[in-house]
């Protein structure tokens, strides 16, 4: 069912986070990730989606299959038009939060995934791209 990629989930309410988790889970399983990697990907997606909901109010999560030489992976793009991240370096420090969270979302999502890229502009919004490559064959 490759035609269902890329998938896009709009984040408007808190329950949309559940939809994100579900759709990312299905995509990761379809791509053949093992159970622990599936859990890592769902958890990272959940952290990033929660951030959108908390800081920007709304946004979108896109999920697609990516490939490089002999590997395939899953890419998640989490984008919002919220206030942006003022200090990305600080936001990446475990325990740092401008809200009242635990401050684990961004650094945690980075550890759970293989690659992470943050583009953010004050007042314009934030775009976070994360990738996980499937190991083995």
């Amino acid at each position, binding site marked *: 069912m490759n035609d269902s990629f890329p998938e896009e989930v709009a984040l408007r309410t808190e329950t949309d986070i559940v939809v994100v988790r579900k759709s990312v889970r299905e995509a990761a399983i379809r791509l053949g990730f093992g159970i622990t990697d599936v859990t890592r990907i769902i958890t990272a997606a*959940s952290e990033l989606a929660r951030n959108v909901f908390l800081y920007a109010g709304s946004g979108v999560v896109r999920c697609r299959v990516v490939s490089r030489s002999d590997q395939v992976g899953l890419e998640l793009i989490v984008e919002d038009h919220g206030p942006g991240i003022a200090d990305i370096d600080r936001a990446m420090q475990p325990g740092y939060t401008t809200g009242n969270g*635990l401050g*684990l979302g961004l650094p945690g999502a980075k550890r759970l995934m293989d690659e992470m890229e943050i583009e953010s502009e004050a007042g314009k919004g934030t775009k976070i791209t994360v990738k996980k490559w499937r190991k083995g064959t």
Partner: protein
Amino acid sequence: MERSPARGVVLDVSAVESLDSFFARTIAETTRMVGLMGGHTILTGMRPSVAITITQLGLTLGKMRTALTVDRAFHILRDGSQPVQNHE
């Protein structure tokens, strides 16, 4: 806790496929509230994939008492005439 003479609360997460920091915070807050009411909270049934993931995420749930199964948790609560020793 209020309505019954309960010694504690067992939170079984065996059906939980993923646990993020928000959920972890809810668990930690529940544990604190139960503790304030004189009870112990025991988290049970965590899947290996979830344990690996939340550790990597940076969640410690350090003070959480855990058990492999609900049966063991009840056992701990029943025999815990001396207070259950929390880690840390």
